[in-house]
């Protein structure tokens, strides 16, 4: 979707301001927001792509006004409502309101440690041979789906070159809609900065993105 999250190439946000000796979390609640999101991920009620879609579906004004972990907390709130883990009354009250159904098994510290150690690979067996090979010119499709996609707006309609065949990976556009993992070939595609940003732009810039096969066409 063309939401506020898709920021590549936007102007007006000002300079990047690094912070010396930055703590991992700037306040206690940020660590809790992070951990709750990780742990609910382990619970497996929703997938990462569905979570990302919910986050970027926030109205742009709200998305841009929330702090980073504020965005995580707000998204978790919306996911818990959508997936029936909390009611609006419970969120307002700040605790569970009886009667409610208990989860069969709580996510444990050991399960979380295991998730950190093992992660969750996104590569899958290929259902068909790859359509493109390294060196091929490809055009990123001019597409503007209202659902979740990982093809940034700045690349759409532009021609680049395949520089790596990553493998066959879970397709976020389908997975985010709970339509299954629908694996597709994933490529690294390199664009010339001038093609993306015009004649006046820095001629030394190349930009690489990962693009799933359905994002690409032969020019």
């Amino acid at each position, binding site marked *: 979707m063309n939401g506020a999250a898709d920021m590549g190439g936007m102007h007006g946000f000002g300079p990047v301001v690094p912070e010396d000796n930055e703590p991992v979390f700037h306040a206690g609640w940020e660590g*809790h927001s992070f951990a709750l999101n990780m742990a609910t991920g382990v619970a497996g009620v929703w997938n990462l792509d569905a979570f990302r879609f919910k986050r970027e579906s926030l109205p742009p004004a709200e998305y841009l006004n929330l702090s980073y972990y504020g965005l995580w907390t707000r998204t978790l709130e919306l996911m818990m409502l959508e997936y029936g883990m909390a009611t609006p009354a419970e969120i307002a009250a700040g605790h*569970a309101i009886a009667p409610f159904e208990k989860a069969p098994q709580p996510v444990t510290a050991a399960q979380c440690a295991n998730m950190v150690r093992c992660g969750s690979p996104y590569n899958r067996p290929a259902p068909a041979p790859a359509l493109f090979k390294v060196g091929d010119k490809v055009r990123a499709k001019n597409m503007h789906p209202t659902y979740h996609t990982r093809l940034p707006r700045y690349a759409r309609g532009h021609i680049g070159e395949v520089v790596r065949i990553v493998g066959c990976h879970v397709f976020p556009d389908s997975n985010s809609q709970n339509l299954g993992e629908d694996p597709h070939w994933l490529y690294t595609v390199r664009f010339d900065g001038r093609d993306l940003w015009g004649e006046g732009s820095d001629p030394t*810039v190349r930009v690489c993105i990962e693009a799933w096969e359905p994002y690409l066409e032969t020019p």
Partner: protein
Amino acid sequence: MAHDHHHDHDHEHGSELSDMQLRTRALETILIEKGYIDPAAIDELIETYEKKIGPRNGAQVVAKSWVDPQFRKWLFEDGTAAIGSLGFGGRSGNHLVALENTPSVHNMVVCTLCSCYPWAVLGLPPLWYKSAPYRSRTVADPRGVLADFGIALPKDTEIRVWDSTAELRYLVVPMRPAGTEGWSEEKLAELVTRDSMIGTGVAKSPKELT
């Protein structure tokens, strides 16, 4: 807890902080009361990313690549396996690619769509990496972003920006500083900064080591 104090940030107003503190606590209470999450799981995750997983992991990888040509070759051919051999991988590290900085090519990593970052080797990202200024400008004006970090590269250096749009995670391997011949891996790792592994910095020179 040590991280409970609040810093002043012009983008995070005090009112939002307390509001978000309450809202986060509300969700946590509901999740615990309904039996979705064991409270110990929350402590485990916070402790892991505050204390155990951070940029020292990546620095070890880079230092090894500076002294061990075979490892270096493997690292650029199969980042996941080479980095995995040092014990790093898993969450946000299942698919790792190492990028080689040379005198003619400088690599920079960004996630314009959210905040994808190689946690397994660098820990959680700094605030600026997740911020709108970095996400918006890096793909279009990487030299301008480098200037914000006080870095100026030669005019003809190619700048490759890697936008992490899938589950691949990138680790930039900075160039080894001059004057470090014969140094041990442990000592070399001290020169490898987090920013040098994102591409918004370069490795420290021996003079900068205090």
